[in-house]
């Protein structure tokens, strides 16, 4: 066992298997529907965060507009199924394709920008998409929203729907874990090395023959597709959407998840999505209505001040320090 843990590749497989097993049996311990709903939401956010983590942590490109891709996925599903009458599964695929197209169209000019300029461009894009969702009444029914979005089902058995939290849980987490697996494989591949090179120094990467523009665009599109899928699943689960959960604050929340979890660690996305949800629930349970944002802002600042590498890395570092201290004492 100890030898197996030394080999990084094996350790990764073991970690993945352990987390997958934990995810699979977790619902057994969850009695209330509300907590199941929260776990579904963590899965949906994980999907988005893992892609954004790849983009920010490995490729070094910030996006302050990823809620827009979630919106595009959700609205594609809603409009195609409710207005056009397309089958939900087809709508799910269309949601992924359309977010990919939009991401490519936005990413091509935007990824030429650097640092804060890219952050502002993605922020602007997010604002524009949110405005359209809010104003284009004929397409999105503005703030009244679109209701009656059909569930995803196979042979009459509903899988993702508001009436089947458990089914939704398993589908969402299956997709989320596949996304984690795909992203950690990408990180270890040739593409991953190229991305890290871009993050380290774009000029140097370019000199070494890395087509930086192409890699950046690929990662951007991949992260957008994951966001679009998450949006689509969200729409079929909730059966109703309006522009509220896709505004600037949510784009920021996604970035917060990535950074709190720990950038450049694939599991950081899960930790981040889970922690943000956990903090919210904790504050809600304390009935701190007025003081909730105050407490939330404070927690955010404290985590960043004391664990600037995020919770995942910070936790590992603290564990290592404790172990060293214990070893020193035992000696």
């Amino acid at each position, binding site marked *: 066992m100890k030898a197996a843990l030394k080999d990084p590749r094996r350790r990764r497989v073991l970690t993945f298997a352990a987390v997958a097993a934990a995810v699979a049996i977790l619902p057994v311990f969850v009695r209330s529907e509300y907590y199941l709903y929260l776990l579904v939401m963590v899965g949906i956010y994980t999907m988005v965060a893992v892609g954004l983590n790849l983009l920010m942590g490995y490729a070094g490109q910030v996006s302050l507009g990823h809620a827009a891709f979630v919106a595009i996925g959700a609205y594609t599903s809603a409009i195609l199924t409710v207005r056009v009458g397309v089958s939900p599964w087809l709508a799910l695929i269309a949601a992924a394709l359309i977010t990919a197209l939009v991401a490519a169209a936005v990413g091509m000019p*935007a990824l030429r920008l*650097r640092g804060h300029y890219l952050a502002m461009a993605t922020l602007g894009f997010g*604002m524009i998409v949110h*405005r359209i969702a809010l104003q284009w009444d004929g397409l999105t029914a503005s703030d009244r929203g679109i209701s009656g979005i059909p569930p995803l089902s196979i042979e009459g058995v509903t899988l993702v729907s508001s009436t089947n939290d458990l089914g939704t849980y398993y589908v969402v987490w299956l997709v989320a874990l596949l996304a984690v697996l795909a992203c950690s494989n990408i990180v270890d591949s040739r593409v991953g090395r190229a991305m890290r090179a871009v993050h380290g120094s774009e*000029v140097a990467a370019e000199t070494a023959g890395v087509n930086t523009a192409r890699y950046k665009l690929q990662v951007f599109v991949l992260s957008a597709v994951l966001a679009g899928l998450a949006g689509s699943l969200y729409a079929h689960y909730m059966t109703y959407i309006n522009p509220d959960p896709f505004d600037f604050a949510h784009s920021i929340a996604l970035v917060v998840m990535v950074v709190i979890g720990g950038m450049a660690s694939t599991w950081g996305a899960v930790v981040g999505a889970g922690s943000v949800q956990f903090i919210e629930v904790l504050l809600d349970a304390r009935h701190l209505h007025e003081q909730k*944002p105050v407490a939330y802002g404070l927690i955010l600042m404290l985590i960043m001040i004391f664990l*600037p590498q995020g919770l995942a890395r910070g936790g590992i570092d603290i564990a290592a320090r404790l172990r060293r201290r214990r070893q020193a004492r035992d000696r």
Partner: protein
Amino acid sequence: MSLTWGQLLQFLLSGLMYGSLYAVIALGFNLIHNATRVVNFAQGEFVTLGALCSLSLVMIGLPLPVALVGAVAIVTVTGWATERMAIRPVRGASVITLIIITIGASVFLRGMVTWIWGSDERPPLRPFWPGPSLALGPAMVQRQYIWILGIVLATMFLLWLLGEKTLLGKAMRACAFNQRAAQIVGIDVGRMVLLSWALSAGLGALAGVIIAPVVTPKWDMGVMLGLKGFAAAILGGMGIPAGAVLGGITLGLAESLGVGLLPDWGSGYKDAIAFSIMLAVLFVKPTGLLGARSEAR
């Protein structure tokens, strides 16, 4: 689209007024960016705080000018405290960590604002120069617009004086240029960072105070103003004072004229117009209107 000259002038004036506000806020973004390379997402909260403090100070009976100065002073101290408590302890952390801290600070400050003032809209502040609107050719100008433009111009002049003519301003610019080099010649970089935060908060508060008579002040009034200020700073070229002014005015005029020239449904897209124009400029000129330096490593 039939637009009379009077209406066109009206749109130009309100665009200029909002543009000058964006410019002041953008100058605040620039100050902190130059000192720390960080985008301060709490900038909009300084605007809100300025407006609401001035309302409360007037309400407890202080004369208007005292209330205005008092509000700016309170927010300046808030900016100073934010740097001391949230930014200084993590000196040397990565830029993204610092940015998340400013996001935390913005959520925190917004929470404090709703805690203290509630989430209802407030009646506007008493105008600085009461009376009916003034006629400017075919257009009518609210008297407050004149105050806003005047105060913004005066502020820009003072900032220019500070930056170009005083030793302190030169030290701040040296820090922006190269912190290590500035330290070597004996400039206290930490103090300059602190000063940038205080000054930047003061500028945000000033924008909030002068706009308070023409808007309905409430807890989230600064969010969009802050983001537009950020957009203006980027549009002009981050870190360049003249760029902040140019970016702000461009953004203000563009969104105002966009609303005027589009059919009725266009007014709902006011914010989208501003950000579309900014994106269009960035796609053509990736470093902003006046930016020449590349951020490439």
